[in-house]
């Protein structure tokens, strides 16, 4: 379980978020929403340990997060960054890095690790890119590969900053379905989303940050009923029957996709 106690975080003497108390339970999806610059990413980064609290604390299973050795922390929390460098290495090599927190020096992959890597790539329908260089992939393909890397890290807590960026609607929806599956496995998922529709549909808890840095939490229904979206975004949102649905959820399962692996490339280049 991840807990934020009276947390204040900021950069260069300026607070971005103040006095936040939150706790994240296993088997739930938490979505952070708010306007640009409201501190969504900052909040997520504090959960990952990337930002150290100025005041208050971040507790992982009752112990202060910053007290964890780097390796142990990486076995528990994975983080999908909004911006990543793309060195000219193969997807296979990138995914191998995701297993390193679980391995001791000299970090040789076991069969078990290789299976996890293939499963993660299958889940993101990215198995066919395995021998491609990161640089050769499009934005969306690269995003799927980074998501697969995070899945391969196989942590109980997943932090995702705008995971649907660059993704076609097909992959956005299958990602959301996949997150539901991970949640059912007892994982804690905390993400930042821009798409309110998806946030309200797929989350168990919404964390809404308004421009005055006030933080509202509640189930999607509570958030809707409480008029929080009006306070935060200055828009009126109402329920509607019109929704995107994934017609064939079977296509999302890893078994259906993993057979693709073996082809050297998904498309001719």
């Amino acid at each position, binding site marked *: 379980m991840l807990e934020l106690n009276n947390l204040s975080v900021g950069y260069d003497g300026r607070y971005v978020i103040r006095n936040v108390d939150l706790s994240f339970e296993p088997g739930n999806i938490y979505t952070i929403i708010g306007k640009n610059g409201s501190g969504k990413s900052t909040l997520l980064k504090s959960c*990952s340990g990337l930002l150290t609290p100025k005041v208050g604390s971040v507790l992982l299973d009752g112990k202060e997060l910053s007290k964890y050795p780097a390796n142990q922390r*990486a076995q528990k929390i994975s983080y999908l*960054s909004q911006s*990543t*460098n793309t060195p000219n290495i193969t997807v296979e*090599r*990138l995914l191998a890095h995701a297993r390193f*927190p679980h391995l001791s020096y000299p970090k040789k992959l076991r069969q078990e690790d290789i299976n996890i890597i293939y499963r993660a790539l299958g889940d993101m329908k990215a198995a066919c890119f395995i021998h491609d260089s990161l640089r050769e992939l499009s934005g969306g393909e690269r995003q799927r590969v980074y998501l697969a890397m995070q899945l391969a890290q196989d942590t109980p807590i997943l932090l995702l900053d705008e995971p649907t960026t660059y993704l076609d609607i097909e992959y956005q929806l299958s990602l959301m379905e996949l997150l539901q599956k991970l949640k059912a496995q007892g994982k804690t998922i905390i993400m930042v989303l821009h798409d309110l529709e998806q946030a309200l549909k797929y989350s168990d808890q919404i964390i809404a940050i308004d421009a005055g840095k006030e933080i509202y939490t509640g189930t999607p229904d509570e958030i809707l009923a409480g008029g929080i979206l009006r306070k935060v975004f200055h828009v009126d949102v109402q329920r509607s029957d019109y929704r995107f649905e994934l017609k064939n959820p079977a296509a999302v399962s890893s078994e259906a996709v993993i057979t693709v692996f073996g082809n050297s490339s998904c498309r001719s280049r």
Partner: protein
Amino acid sequence: MHGGVKAMKFLRNFFHSKGAIFAVSTLALILVIIVSLCVGVVIYTPVQLLELPDILRYIRFPRVMAAVFAGAGLAGAGVIIQTLLGNSLAGPNIIGVNSGAGFMTLVAALIFPLIPQMQPLAAFLGALFSVMLIYLLSRKAGTSKMTILLSGVVLNSLLNAASEALCTFFPDVHMSYAAFRVGGLATVQTLVLYPAAILITVLFIIVQCRANTLELLSLGDDTAFTLGVSVKKYRLLFLVCAAGMAGAAVSFAGLIGFLGLIVPHGARLVVGDEIKKLFPLSVLWGSLLLLVCDTVARTVFAPFELSVGIVISIIGAPIFIRMLLKRKVG
């Protein structure tokens, strides 16, 4: 597709899995070492050379080793610096690492004229200072590659000016600054060379053993951190290694330009950015290139010799310009 790129792709596919490129490069290096030992003002056969142990031991062997280790040190430092700054245009000479080492070497030569062994240490400190300064600047400036390069160029110019000033005020500095500035192996002192060579070897082994970690850092600090790397600790370790490799090379070979920039870039085209392959291949090619250039420099106009720095720059400048045009620096 461009012919050169096509050829590079072919080379990459051909060599990638087989490690053949390492075998070929190693063989080439051994061959060039033997040739380089044999040629000079007088050309000997290898058998004749073995009968002249003094020439071998005191003249040709140190010279060849100087080229091998200086090339290795500069190219290795180039890979590390480019990886940490996420910028393939940031060679150790461009961002002032070499000039930092050069300045401190001069200071050491001035203060301890009779202890040349101090020079590698001083060069290391100078290189470390530059590397740290550029790194801190790049942290402050965020991801702007232009800012990093520009601040490096400014630092480079500042340190070179300081070196010039030092030579103006103390014209009797123990070493020839003119030769030092273009870089050359003609006046290599074994007292400086051997400790520096050992340092370069040790640092090479350390970095190669931690190649995975360096590669993780190339994914960006945030990603490396969340994948369990103690970012601050390892960044410091690699910066120290880069400074050590560049500093050690500069301490006996002078300010050789371009090598630390172009060699890793060439190796990247063949093996990509995978550090486990890129780092050793760059080191190998650095040695090879510098040895070839030095052999050319001391034989084409024999008994006069060109400075190896001149030969490298003549080859390096066009390659660098081509790189700039192709990359459209971002």
